[in-house]
């Protein structure tokens, strides 16, 4: 199996150097070969486990929690680029939100 490293790096939003790509490709191929042994196990009659404890149906009530809300200063404190109370990023050409 050969991974399309450039495609996966794009999905993972990771900027990779050319030499890094080569090294990662070799390592990932080896790891994938390693984990392939899982296919030996018959799981045809098994459901997957998402939640390992029996916990279910956990909710919040629809109440505003002033205590956890951050001030604008605190919310932006760690942002490297900001402008008028907003976080600044390089222009995004493509219009439209991704809801």
């Amino acid at each position, binding site marked *: 199996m050969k991974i399309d490293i450039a495609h996966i790096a794009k*999905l993972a939003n990771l900027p990779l150097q050319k030499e*890094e790509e080569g090294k990662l490709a070799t390592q990932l191929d*080896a790891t994938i070969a390693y*984990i392939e*042994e899982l296919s030996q196990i018959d799981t045809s009659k098994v459901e*997957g486990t998402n939640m390992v404890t029996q*916990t279910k149906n956990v909710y919040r009530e629809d109440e505003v929690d002033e205590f956890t809300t951050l001030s604008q200063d605190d919310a932006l404190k760690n942002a490297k680029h900001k402008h008028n109370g907003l976080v600044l990023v390089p222009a995004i050409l493509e219009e439209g939100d991704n809801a």
Partner: protein
Amino acid sequence: MDLHTLTIKEAKSKLKNKEISSLELTQAYLERIEKIDPKLNSFVTVTKDKALQMAKDADEALSAGEDKPLLGLPFSIKDNFCTKDIRTTASSKVLDDFIPPYSATVVSRLMDAGIVHLGKTNMDAWAHGSSTATSDYGPTRNPWDVERYPGGSSGGAAASVASDEALAAIGSETAGSVRGPASWCGLVGLKPTYGRVSRYGVIAMASSTDSPGPLTKTVEDAATILEVLAGKDPHDATSSSLPVEKYSETMKAGKKMTIGIADDYFDGVDSEVVAKVQEALKLLESKGHTVKKIELFDPKYAIDVYTILMRSEVSSNLARFDGIRYGNDRSYFAEEAKRRMMLGTYALSSGYYDAYYKKAQKVRTLIVEDFAKAFAEVDVIIGPTLPTPAIKIGQADDPMFGEKADILTEPSAIAGLCAINMPVGFSSLGLPIGMQIMGRQFGESTILDLAYQYEKETEFWKQKPNL
């Protein structure tokens, strides 16, 4: 009297009896850190001024007769716990300058319980590793042999307690990150059941197995801390609402137990480690416990399941680190994180999800069921914690080193069980060896009980590294 060699129990009683003050105690630890941390690199950040202030506050509270479970006791906290107004890096340059505006629930609970916070301990970056080799701030060194790793990812936490730089440490485990370094550093390391301790504010590695836990000198210290940490957190939907037991009392039940052992957990394990664990089992048998052979799912498959699930979750959990709202951009990720994100992204990508992620979730079910079957016959399961004693610096460069080293802790982590590492003696080179006692989900009282019984007979914790 060496103040920094105390246990929580001893320090508490000395503070209460006014034999010492929290300030004296804190100063002793800070001096110790100043003296030996250049050798060990346990800490990423030492919060000296804050610690001194907290100690003074604690002394005031003590003289006012306040009774908090950890009042005035100096702790270290792993650097993947968000600490309000204190730099939190997860040992990655991505977060080199990140100052959280909030604290993890575990941190808040410790503060409410009165601790003095000495600083943030080094770890494998993002908790990716089992040695601290992947820290962007350099590896931590094992107090028992500074040419060796302390284990990981909570390596700084373990080294800080083993070297008496802190009275106790808070670490976190995804699979083996508390038990492992506790084993290599000769400490008690408690990995609570998944959901027993809140994950809120702990920088997520694998959300479905992350479990914060203490690293301490003694079992009683671990039980005392767990009482503070455990319990439902409204900010963590996966935290359990089951009642929290008074572990420091329930651990004294002295129950005679049936101990399960599985051959697969001893296969390929270093002979000195096998010998020490078997010695411990003999001792337990001589004290009236029964050892019973059981069959367990071959742990080698746990490596595959864990690698797939963990790396997939990692790829998603690290997506938020884009340098926009905090921290540096994604070019700051080091090799290990990139490797894990890349594999995880691949395993979740279109066309591969069923073969990897879904398959791993199904095998996870088999592992969970397998343990359930075993726990129908036995009270606890014992095995070595790590296959070898501490390895030398520079020997952790296999691209799957972390996952392979943690083979013996991964099955129980995947199944969300509780487990504890207990020191069982030393190798011919004088390196600590550990065994793990694994229990049912929410069976903390049981594993602490057996650990406590064993500790009373051995007291390995009283041996100190020569630093």
